């Protein structure tokens, strides 16, 4: 249903604007006399933002999962897992609010910038937001590694650290990969939180510049757009949808490979 709806409502604007212009033009000025509908800045921002969030969030998430499954005792592990589950349940507006009030001013002060609402702040917020899903999926993967693998490794004289990073983690590789893909999906689809910390101006992405994501473009402009502008927003949604479908496809492939 959603697919059909998105394709039907997304295609006309692309036709009118022209696919290459729509995707590759670097200027988005929808409300002036001679409007320009180029979503390149949004696409790049979404990709950079997601990539940055993965870069920060995934290593942290995996290490956290390793700690929870292999090192922490039952009591600490239980408390931390509970906290992680709680994090997954926090609404994204709350992340955005905390980002706006805590992260934005902090980023401004640490880097001596005139303004802290930029891509970097958005990346930090996204990284925190993908942590819970990355942690819980990699935790499951690590728990599924047969105990005999680790026991064999330890019996051969490897230390605990060596065992974890050379045996357990590689054995859980495909599960961890699935966690990464899931994180990508969550990061690219997030709108509310990044809208509150990224400044929301349609610039080409710069790490310390104000940017707008694919999602936030749709969310912030849908309420007042009309005509071609409105249709173009549906086309943006379609592009976003294609991205997310591609990610899900990747996830499926990864999971299938794991089953083999």
């Amino acid at each position: 249903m959603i697919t059909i709806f998105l394709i039907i409502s997304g295609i006309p604007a692309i036709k009118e604007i022209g696919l290459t212009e729509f995707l590759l033009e670097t200027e988005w000025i929808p409300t002036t006399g001679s409007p320009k509908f180029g979503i390149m800045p949004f696409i790049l921002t979404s990709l950079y933002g997601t990539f940055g969030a993965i870069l920060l969030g995934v290593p942290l998430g995996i290490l956290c999962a390793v700690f929870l499954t292999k090192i922490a005792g039952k009591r600490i592990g239980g408390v931390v897992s509970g906290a992680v589950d709680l994090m997954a349940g926090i609404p994204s507006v709350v992340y955005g609010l905390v980002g706006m009030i805590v992260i934005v001013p902090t980023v401004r002060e640490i880097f001596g910038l005139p303004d802290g609402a930029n891509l970097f702040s958005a990346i930090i917020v996204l990284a925190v937001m993908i942590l819970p899903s990355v942690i819980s999926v990699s935790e499951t993967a690590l728990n599924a590694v047969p105990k005999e693998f680790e026991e064999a490794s330890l019996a051969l004289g490897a230390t605990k650290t060596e065992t974890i990073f050379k045996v357990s983690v590689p054995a859980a590789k495909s599960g961890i990969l699935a966690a990464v893909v899931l994180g990508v999906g969550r990061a690219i689809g997030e709108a509310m939180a990044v809208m509150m910390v990224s400044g929301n101006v349609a610039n080409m992405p710069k790490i310390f510049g104000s940017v707008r994501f694919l999602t936030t473009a749709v969310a912030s402009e849908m309420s007042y757009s009309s005509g071609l502008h409105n249709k173009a927003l549906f086309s943006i949604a379609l592009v976003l949808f294609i991205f997310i479908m591609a990610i899900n496809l990747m996830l499926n492939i990864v999971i299938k490979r794991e089953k083999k």
Partner: protein
Amino acid sequence: MKIIKKAMIGAAAMAMLFGISGCGDNNSGQTVSTDGSTSMESVIGFLSEAYQEKTGIKVTYNPTGSGSGIQAVQENRCDIGLSSRDLKDEEKEKLNGTVIAYDGIAVIVNPENPVEDMSVEQIAQIYTGEIDNWQEVGGEDSPIVCIGREAASGTRDGFESVTGTADKCKYAQELTSTGDVIQTVASNPNAIGYASLASVGDSVKTVSVNSVTPSEETILSGDYSVQRGFFLVTSKDRNLSEQAQNFYDFCISNEADDLIRKAGAVPIEK
């Protein structure tokens, strides 16, 4: 057993429904819905509260921004649209706009900022990027961060048309509500922003423009130039419901003047 239970729950639900519609005075259940400008929040707040006290009819308010409010009236999603900019010519074909009050657009800076006064030209230059350091307008040596509103905002429309900067502004942030702008300026010592005078509190500093401090007199006399009207927007194609028409009449009556003043805006001369 199960069927009996279900029947009982159903009966209870029915009783509750009828109970709600049965008690209370005649007007309960009727509401007037308004939708639009976030700048008009305090004005509509005062008006609807007084109106509800007077008649018992509830007025709902959905703060979405002027462009959204106008769109909502067109699409029949609310009774009265709220706009802090005049209607465009193509919108006037289908809609009526009535001004109920005037409001200054306050140019606001962080309280730490020593700048007290700016000319309209200076403000325009700041927003177009020609001036990018506070030193040039009498402040400290620090970069200027321009905070603005989304493209359909009535405040942005009013501000850009007064300063002559339509579509030329280089914003560092485009925020979606009056409160967001004030919050952001309050938390960043380098920021400059614009917001409805009626909504500005103590958390930010209002600068005078061309040495004129925004106030009721200066706005009414036109000395304070950065101002615009607050409009009620209605559709030409369909009539207002009785209670919506009543609220509309109330808003343009003399009774509303004091309330509008209390809300920080300036009532029109009648």
